[in-house]
């Protein structure tokens, strides 16, 4: 019997700036229950006069960490909920949330692989939950992450990705920086396109399960390119974040 989804009041325990625009918010939840990598929580803010705003944020933490969740939240220009998190919320504050939600864009080790994870900007948050969960499983499921960011400073979880990639059966991490690359950069330097994906596919295990997450235009471009390259649509799952305004 599936447990009902209820709104609960979480407490902000910590905030950690990942990049100038993205901060991880750790919430402890009185009615926490294990989630699956890829799922999200709905957050609801209520003003004194009853005005409400609601958004969904992906869970970054793996389900093995019980009692609390990490939400990765990007500061959106003119975004009323992300602005509240970034500018107003302090440790000890209460936040109303509901989750975990999502039965489609999820992955657990039992689903197997190989995996191809494609992320853009804060789209890498749910993919990070998958990578963190993958690290707790045995056997090292063959995995490639293709991560798109504007500049090196905007690569979320950069150090953790370097550590994961350098471990014995770690994921293969491919980065692309679309706006500006540091000198000596060996990754890609442009938006995700079909030739890039062809190379990434050639360099990874055949017939992967694909998860793509990020701004709608990036997701659409990547999904279309992959089907052109022969990946079956049934093997591709997408989570579009919508426009960044």
């Amino acid at each position, binding site marked *: 019997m599936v447990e009902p989804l209820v709104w609960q009041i979480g407490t902000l325990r910590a905030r950690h700036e990942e990049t100038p625009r993205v901060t991880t918010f750790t919430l402890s939840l009185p009615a926490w229950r294990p989630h699956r990598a890829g799922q999200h929580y709905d957050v609801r803010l*209520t*003003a004194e006069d009853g*005005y409400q705003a609601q958004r969904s944020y992906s869970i970054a933490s793996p389900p093995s960490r019980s009692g609390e969740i990490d939400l990765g939240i990007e500061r959106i220009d*003119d975004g*009323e909920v992300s602005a509240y998190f970034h500018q107003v919320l302090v440790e000890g504050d*209460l936040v109303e949330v509901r989750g975990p939600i999502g039965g489609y864009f999820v992955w657990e080790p039992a689903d197997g692989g190989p995996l191809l994870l494609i992320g853009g900007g804060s789209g890498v948050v749910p993919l990070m939950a998958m990578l963190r969960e993958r690290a707790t499983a045995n056997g090292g499921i063959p995995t490639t992450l293709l991560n798109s960011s504007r500049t090196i400073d905007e690569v979320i979880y950069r150090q953790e990705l370097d550590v994961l990639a350098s471990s014995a059966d770690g994921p293969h991490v491919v980065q692309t920086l679309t706006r500006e690359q540091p000198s000596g950069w060996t990754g890609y330097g442009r938006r995700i396109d079909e030739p890039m994906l062809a190379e990434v596919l050639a360099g990874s295990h055949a017939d992967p399960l694909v998860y793509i997450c990020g701004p709608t235009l990036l997701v659409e471009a990547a999904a279309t390119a992959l089907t052109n390259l022969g990946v079956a649509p049934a093997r591709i799952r997408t989570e579009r974040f919508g426009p960044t305004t």
Partner: protein
Amino acid sequence: MAERFISRGFLGRRRSGDGDTASRTPPGQYITEGFPVLSAGPTPVIGLDTWSFTIDGLVRAPVTWSWDEFQKLPASEWTVDISCVTKWTKLDTRWTGVSVDVLLEHVELDPRARFVIAHSFGGYTTNLPLADVLNGQAFVAHGYGGAPVEPAHGGPARLVVPHLYFWKSAKWVRGLHLVADDQPGFWESLGYHNRGDPWREERYSGD
């Protein structure tokens, strides 16, 4: 009844302004400087060579204009405030368009015609009392802010009825059906008000 949880320090986007702008902001609305894009579906791609606008239904003879023919109709400049049911209001929006009065001069209305169904490329519909689109209250706009209306905002042409909530201002409009009995359109059939006057906060049916 359980007390509702209040988020400390959350005010949201609302701003009703002061003085003049406050008096121009309908109840429950906030002023926006931007122009939010809202939609029920993908932006239709409409070539000007395939575009047409038709008035039909309870008229003696329907009339259709091609884009070139429509451009030849007398157009005016309109500066109006607009209010969306999602609570934003934008002041002093500038449009170029053809008054619905001018369009209706080209048909002979059946006396039974009391309502209008505006319908659009892409399938959107909205219903309005005929009285609400007469006497300078409504126009079909092809220009916004001195440039052609962008597809995301309803271009090549959209209906604009500024005194009603903006869901009545059908984007990508392709015609008006004149009918005797009101027929709820896309949002009206989902619980939204058949008329939608922002000054009376007619958001939902039953308001």
